[in-house]
């Protein structure tokens, strides 16, 4: 029983990190079909934002610098995304392979930039003191930093859902993704919507970067490790579907945690990949598919 509870929490914890790095991609990849390989470097930018704030404010203000890092990372990564969209991606809409190669190159440049600015060595971000330690419930220890990440993910998910469902701007975003020509002749500025979508998606990568500093050291190639996982979550969940991404992250996290308990970390990784391949054979569109009726597509 204890084992199951413990693995459930580990699974939930993995799921929350998967979802955190994937949320931004549900916008740029899911909604706009842009394969942005530099997404990982936006995560890295968010992580270094935390480091810079912490160094600037000193160790006396860990909580403050960490709190500031969340919005700051969103803005910085979002702005990087806007620049990338303006300089590169808007010239490549509808050309996924070219986008993939070009953004991969941009990613390498950003990594080098990080090396030049912060050195090739990994840097350490200290967690605020209120995240030290953990809670033991029914024999299972829950660390505060993992619970904090889960909290951040919940907050971001609710914020995204409210934005998409309740605000006219969010509805416009959904409208453009559902039917671009109709949106444009209905007076929606599709270019503005594209830029906003890209800003939000990239900004969320920055927020993910802040969360990831709680898990280990920060280095220039930090984002790469999470990039593939993030794409997998979006694909398994169904393109552009927030609900799908949540389900997929939970499923992958749990599968990882339970396979890992019985075997080893690398077997678990391979096992999860195998499950994904099988699942996509069965449902290539992913878990949640847009409901459509009639001839219009």
């Amino acid at each position, binding site marked *: 029983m204890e084992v199951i509870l413990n693995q459930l929490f580990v699974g939930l914890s993995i799921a929350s990190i998967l979802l955190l790095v994937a949320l931004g991609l549900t916008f740029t990849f899911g909604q706009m079909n842009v394969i942005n390989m530099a997404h990982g470097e936006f995560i890295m930018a968010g992580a270094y934002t935390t480091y810079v704030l912490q160094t600037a404010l000193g160790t006396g203000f860990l909580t403050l610098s960490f709190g500031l890092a969340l919005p700051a990372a969103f803005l910085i990564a979002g702005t990087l995304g806007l620049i990338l969209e303006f300089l590169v991606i808007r010239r490549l809409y509808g050309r996924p392979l070219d986008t993939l190669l070009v953004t991969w190159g941009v990613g390498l440049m950003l990594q080098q930039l990080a090396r030049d600015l912060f050195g090739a060595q990994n840097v350490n971000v200290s967690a605020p003191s209120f995240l030290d330690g953990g809670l033991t419930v029914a024999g299972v220890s829950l660390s505060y930093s993992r619970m904090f990440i889960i909290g951040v993910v919940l907050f971001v998910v609710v914020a995204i859902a409210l934005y998409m469902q309740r*605000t*006219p701007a969010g509805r416009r975003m959904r409208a453009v993704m559902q039917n671009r020509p109709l949106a*444009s*002749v209905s007076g929606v500025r599709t270019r*503005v919507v594209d830029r906003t979508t890209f800003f939000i998606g990239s900004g969320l990568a920055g927020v993910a970067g802040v969360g990831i500093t709680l898990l280990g050291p920060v280095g220039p190639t930090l984002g790469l490790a999470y990039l593939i996982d993030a794409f997998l979550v979006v694909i398994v969940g169904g393109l552009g579907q927030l609900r799908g991404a949540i389900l997929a992250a939970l499923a992958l996290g749990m599968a990882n945690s339970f396979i890992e308990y019985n075997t080893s970390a690398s077997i678990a990784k391979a096992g999860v990949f195998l499950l994904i391949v099988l699942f996509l054979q069965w449902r290539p569109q992913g878990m949640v598919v847009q*409901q459509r009726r009639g001839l219009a597509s």
Partner: protein
Amino acid sequence: MTELLKIRDLVVAFDAFHAIDGLDLTLEEHEVRFVIGPNGAGKTTLIDSITNLVRPTAGSILFAGEELLGKSEYAIVRTGIGRTFQKPSVFDELTVLENVDIAASFRLPFRSLLRRRKGISDEVAQTLGSVNLTDQSESPAGSLSHGQKQWLEVAMVLVQRPRLLLLDEPVAGMTEKERLHTGELVTRIAAEGTTVLVVEHDMDFVRRFAHKVTVMHEGKILTEGSVAEVQSNETVREVYLGRPRDARGAAEALT
């Protein structure tokens, strides 16, 4: 009568194929004009080039004296031109009300789009009423019937109070009752002062509701006139009868 829309020497080329090939068309303010023609005559391309969904190769489109070529889609919407599509096109996953709301808020600045709006404006409610969709306002647009989707599309355009309304086959796939209702709606819109251009295949509908008809053929205007004049025109007969795949349309058109 003043000229509202003045198209001169319009050419739309897709590589070597000229979908529109030197077309001239003038619409007076407050007129209702029906455009007919065999398949591939360029009728939809004409509407697409007015709303900038295709970019014309040459020519000029003046709307109330203002050149439309080179303007973006939303700028054209703002000058007062609305259109519908041949296939019913609505935002399937948004509710009927949200669909109309997106169209209705086309002039609002981006800032105001971040605030949640409460309630329904009179204009939106009234427009939904005029197309008989008040009861469905909270349903997802994807669940509407074919005919209702087309009305919703018309409502989304009407709520913007356009000066020029372009309808692309508004009664395609509708039942007899829905056609009648649509015809009455078009007549009413025109009576309220909107200029309307209707592309239509259904000759029965054209005969019942059209006064002035323009016939297109191979990207050009073949002739213009009343329904009776067009029907008795020799060249129109040839165009329809000369192409076997349009024989059925021709028989309908000319009987």
